[in-house]
């Protein structure tokens, strides 16, 4: 008996938050019975370890409190005890569906702090891998959303394409999943011409496969009824709740950091920012499908324009020297020893650098006190912020729509929980 009261008092704060919510939702045919349902954290449709406490009237959701933190690994604390280079592998584990994007975002932030820039070839390769990772993340979204609303074929087809991408990543970085490919001021290694040919073949074929998936979904009545008008969020609500990425663009807000504050070589590349007006799950699906096509366009341009040359910036005290030079040159040996043991020592200062990740704005805030370790490193993860708009989206929906809405929001808990 005693343990039960203990459990009740433990839960009370989350329950209290749910009960304190404004539940004045108007919908047809209210039953006026009240039920509280716990979804997750171990629920296949919540995409990882997301827990939702939902208040129901009949089958209609009147309130929802998301609970995150089941995958919290304390990366911000770890970062304060890593050199800037040592933290790169940890960024793979944030949004593990697009690790290349996280690597790029993090190194761009550190490079901004150090005041250096990667050479053009490295920048083009970074754009290419970022867009490949975006396609990979959106394919995962496509498959899981379709599966959440009951279409299993698309999941299989999307994963067939992702498999090819993992082969490409293996050729580029030596690892399929946890790539850790970028380095401060450059890349781990250059991309070989045969890998570029693989990428060219992949993007050439991908458009056809996207069309195949769209044929299954775009006129599919079940899919449309499960997503059209479901999980609506208005433009003002979305901005107020800090929604970014495809979710915001599905509300008709023209905000894409690749255009708004171009980083890398995005300003030299020609692409559009797809916008839709609905603000519902279907609009979020359309935006992502259109974004994949834009990514293909970008990758094709990169393959045409990619210059030859070095992939490391020449900043001996900031950028790790090449291995062959470490073994033969005294200066490089000293620099390598200093960078590995004491870290690159940036000036005192603070920066915030953000990129357009597949899920939204992925930002790194770094406060440096001049040592080789960041004094404070904050990860602004898009999934965490996007999840905050979930209660707004699900209010007034059916319980079965919650699954479709989570699918359309596409959160990755590795990133949300940091």
């Amino acid at each position: 008996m005693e343990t039960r009261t203990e459990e009740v008092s433990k839960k009370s704060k989350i329950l209290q938050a749910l009960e304190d919510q404004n539940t004045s939702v108007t919908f047809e045919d209210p039953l006026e019975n009240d039920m509280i349902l716990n979804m997750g954290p171990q629920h296949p449709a919540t995409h990882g370890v997301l827990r939702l406490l939902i208040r129901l009237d009949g089958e209609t959701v009147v309130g929802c409190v998301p609970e995150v933190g089941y995958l919290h690994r304390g990366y911000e604390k770890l970062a304060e005890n890593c050199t800037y280079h040592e933290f790169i592998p940890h960024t793979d584990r944030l949004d593990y569906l697009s690790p290349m994007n996280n690597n790029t975002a993090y190194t761009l932030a550190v490079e901004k702090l150090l005041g250096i820039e990667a050479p053009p070839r490295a920048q083009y390769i970074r754009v290419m891998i970022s867009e490949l990772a975006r396609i990979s993340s959106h394919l995962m979204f496509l498959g899981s959303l379709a599966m959440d609303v009951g279409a299993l074929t698309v999941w299989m087809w999307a994963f067939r394409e992702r498999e090819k991408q993992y082969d490409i990543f293996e050729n580029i970085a030596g690892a399929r999943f946890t790539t850790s490919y970028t380095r401060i001021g450059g890349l781990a290694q250059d991309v070989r011409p045969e890998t570029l040919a693989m990428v060219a073949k992949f993007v050439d074929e991908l458009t056809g496969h996207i069309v195949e998936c769209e044929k299954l979904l775009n006129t599919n009545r079940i899919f449309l009824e499960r997503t059209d008008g479901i999980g609506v969020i208005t433009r003002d609500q979305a901005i107020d709740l800090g929604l970014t990425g495809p979710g915001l663009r599905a509300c008709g807000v023209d905000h894409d950091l690749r255009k708004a504050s171009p980083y890398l070589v995005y300003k030299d590349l020609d692409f559009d920012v797809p916008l839709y007006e609905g603000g519902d799950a279907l609009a979020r699906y359309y935006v992502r499908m259109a974004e994949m096509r834009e990514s293909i366009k970008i990758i094709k341009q990169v393959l045409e324009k990619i210059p030859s040359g070095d992939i490391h910036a020449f900043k001996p005290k900031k950028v790790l020297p090449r291995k062959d030079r470490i073994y033969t040159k005294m200066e490089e040996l000293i620099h390598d020893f200093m960078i590995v043991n004491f870290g690159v020592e940036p000036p005192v200062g603070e920066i915030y650098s953000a990129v357009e990740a597949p899920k939204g704005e992925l930002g790194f805030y770094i406060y440096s006190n001049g040592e080789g370790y960041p004094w404070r490193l904050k990860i602004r993860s898009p999934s965490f912020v996007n999840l905050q708009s979930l209660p707004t989206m699900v209010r007034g929906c059916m319980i079965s729509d919650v699954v479709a809405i989570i699918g359309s929001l596409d959160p990755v808990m590795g990133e949300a929980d940091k």
Partner: protein
Amino acid sequence: MNAVIIDKLKARFGEQSIRVSEFRGELTLVVPKDHIVGICRFLKEDAELKFDLLADVCGIDMNTAEKRFGVIYNLYSLSNKFRLRLKTFTEEEDPKVPTVTGVWGTANWHERETFDMFGIVFEGHPDLRRVYMPEEFEHYPLRKDFPLMGIPGSIPLPKNK
């Protein structure tokens, strides 16, 4: 843009209240915590500045005797495509900062995270619970005096029935 923001804020909130610094082209304003809500509301609602998106809120432990904890607001203006950073500091004993949830709804979870990690209490916050750590956890992990290894026994294991 920088000069416009600084002039407007100084005209409105007084010459002394704002300390300006710039690093790598990013503008940082240190403001007193009593003014933070007023300044945020002004920056959001001013017809020219329109900082309508709050990108991020985070805490920082400066590990100094005076004004130990800081709260950092990274703002973004969708129409001007411009970033601005606000900082405010609070003392070690009983750290409190007024909440900006009334200005941007997104501050809700960001402030919960800051409270979870640093123990900074946001006065007037509608739902100040821990966000990552368990509710019964008693420490604040991102404070500099919290060890990297954690504190043994600080997270109770589930009891065997």
